[in-house]
């Protein structure tokens, strides 16, 4: 074999692989809506490892749209729902957002991941389309001063504070390890947690380890072995359930016995499926159980009949769609800035609680509580004082 060919060959192949990565990105466009329909859209990770959450979002919005269509639609027109799959990829989220803009969408419910919501909201902002995310908790989603961006969930600075208070006052931890998945959401939450830990711990709590892992990776034994060697009382994880499940499972295997505390990205039955018994006794922060709210029972019944058991964000998606459609109705137009204005002044008792927005687009009242995993399901465990 000639040496020059042997050396050149891997380079050529690497280049071709790089090309093949981008080959999968694409999407079909669709024309403008017909005159007697109004288009709204829902976007989230509809395929891939986080597809469960995207599907929950889609189902919640679909249910609200069906309700409205049965009552005659909005502004006397039928509502058409477009579904966008961002595959929790920021690049794909921007592509989807552009596709929505080109298809004449009036408002968007989504996205799920903060790392998708933030770049996509730039596109919606440029096109003057209202966007309500039911799940993106990173402060940056609403902190950039865009009047068209809203959320019907809490913020990570609130969430991280509750988690830190719980770790300090309830678990009485002195040594804490912090891991995150390097995404906008995961790292953001981990940083907020760390910040609040110093505040509520009064300097007595030591962060013994802080590092990121890669989303989509499957082997965390290396980093967990290091975490175990620091002997933490608790370890915190900012990230989503596929990695969260693997972390607690592998932590057990490397002899790390400290409990895991995480955020709202982990609350999904798949977390328990992946982790099995290791999931028992892990904690996470999330809003109070929506399926137990008296206001949610009617929708819950309808949801179960149609799609089965709702996910943690199904009802937030439903409420986000309600807020959007009500705003379109009260604005009396499909003009984006008028709709955003209508959302800002709206006050609506949704199934998840009072939905009223401050000037940034955050909810005026939100609440985080701590949940525990017990017997394979999530249940509410502890609420911070003063709520």
């Amino acid at each position, binding site marked *: 074999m000639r*040496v020059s060919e042997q050396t050149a060959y891997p380079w050529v192949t690497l280049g071709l692989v790089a090309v093949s990565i981008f080959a999968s990105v694409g999407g079909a466009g669709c024309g403008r809506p017909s005159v007697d329909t109004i288009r709204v859209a829902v976007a989230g990770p509809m395929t891939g490892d986080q*597809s469960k959450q995207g599907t929950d979002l889609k189902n919640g919005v679909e249910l609200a749209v069906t309700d409205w269509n049965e009552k005659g639609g909005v502004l006397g027109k039928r509502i058409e729902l477009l579904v966008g799959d961002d595959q929790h990829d920021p690049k794909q989220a921007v592509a989807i957002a552009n596709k929505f803009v080109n298809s004449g969408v009036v408002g968007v419910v989504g996205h799920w991941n903060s790392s998708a919501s933030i770049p996509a909201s730039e596109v919606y902002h440029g096109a003057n389309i209202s966007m309500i995310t039911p799940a993106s908790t990173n402060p940056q989603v609403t902190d950039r001063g865009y009047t068209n961006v809203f959320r019907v969930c809490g913020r990570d600075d609130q969430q991280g504070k509750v988690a830190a208070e719980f770790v300090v006052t309830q678990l009485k931890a002195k040594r804490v390890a912090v891991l995150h998945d390097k995404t906008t959401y995961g790292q953001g939450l981990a940083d907020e947690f760390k910040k609040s830990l110093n505040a509520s711990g009064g300097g007595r709590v030591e962060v013994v380890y802080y590092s990121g*892992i890669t989303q989509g990776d499957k082997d965390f034994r290396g*980093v967990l072995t290091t975490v175990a060697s620091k002997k933490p009382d608790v370890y915190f994880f900012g990230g989503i359930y596929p990695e969260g499940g693997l972390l607690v499972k592998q932590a057990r295997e490397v002899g790390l016995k400290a409990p895991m505390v995480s955020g709202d990205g982990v609350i999904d039955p798949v977390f328990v499926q*992946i982790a099995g018994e290791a999931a028992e006794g892990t904690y996470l922060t999330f809003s109070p159980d929506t399926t137990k709210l008296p206001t949610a029972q009617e929708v819950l019944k309808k949801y179960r009949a149609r799609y089965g058991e709702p996910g943690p964000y199904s009802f937030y998606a439903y409420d986000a769609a309600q807020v959007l459609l009500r705003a379109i109705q009260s604005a009396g137009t499909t003009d984006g800035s008028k709709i955003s204005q209508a959302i800002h002044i709206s006050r609506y008792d949704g199934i998840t609680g009072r939905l009223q927005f401050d000037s940034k687009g955050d909810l005026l009242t939100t609440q985080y509580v701590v949940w525990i995993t017990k017997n394979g399901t999530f249940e509410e465990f502890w609420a911070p004082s003063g709520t």
Partner: protein
Amino acid sequence: MFFQQIVNGLALGAVYALIALGYTMVYGILELINFAHGEIYMIGAYLGILLLTFFTVVGLTQNHLVLSLILVFVGSALYCAAYGLTLERVAYRPLRHAHRLSPLISAIGMSIFLQNYVMLAQGSADKVFPHILLAEPITFLGVPVGPLQMFIILTSIVLMIGLHIFVKKTRLGKAMRATAQDKRMAGLVGIDINRVIAVTFVIGSILASAAGVMVAMYYGLVNFFIGYVAGIKAFTAAVLGGIGNIPGAMLGGFILGLVESLGASYISSEYKDVFAFLILIGVLILRPSGLLGEKASEKV
């Protein structure tokens, strides 16, 4: 902790090595990087999960764990061998005399096809492995070692020794080495080249399927794109050891696993994947023929 990280790295490296063998053997004979090889590994992992779930449902794993594990490995190996054979027949044999870039593009095409085919057939969500194997670590010389880690390392070593004996001692192994040295001459002395190539694909696929099943057990979940990163890492391992060289692929796999594991713990876990590709770039610049790649006469 250091020893524990070594065990973590060896378990990871064993898997890379098993997949890398498939790359290196095919390259040794055809001078083709079989980019669809990672997908064979992914299919093996799926088969592992599906079969083990099936055996758990019918109650076999609870009573006869060893028997059901053997059945899972054999079943997955047969299925993957059939895929490997078909792949060679459909995507590479018709291009045997074409320009050398053509089979490479065909390989990338097959990789994309198989990924999407599995996604459509099995869904895009993660498939979770049934929890039947004990996960509690065993303390060995004061270090907690996962039983699965030992299982992976030992199984891989047994398979590699088996491969070594096959290549060195059997007639078919000799035919493989001859084909790798000179295809035309091997044909002239009466070796059925097509059969040797088919056998090479079958063996590579069996090794990849074993890696897939073990990874499915080890991580407890699979999805349709695990073959991509694993394939690239294993390819790196093969290049590191010297592509076309069987002991090189084994060595490369273990080195890569150790570097990832130690790098993640002592330098930064955020750069875990970076280490693998830094090694690849380093090897390509400093020693393009790989660590063991100089002995060209023994490249099978």
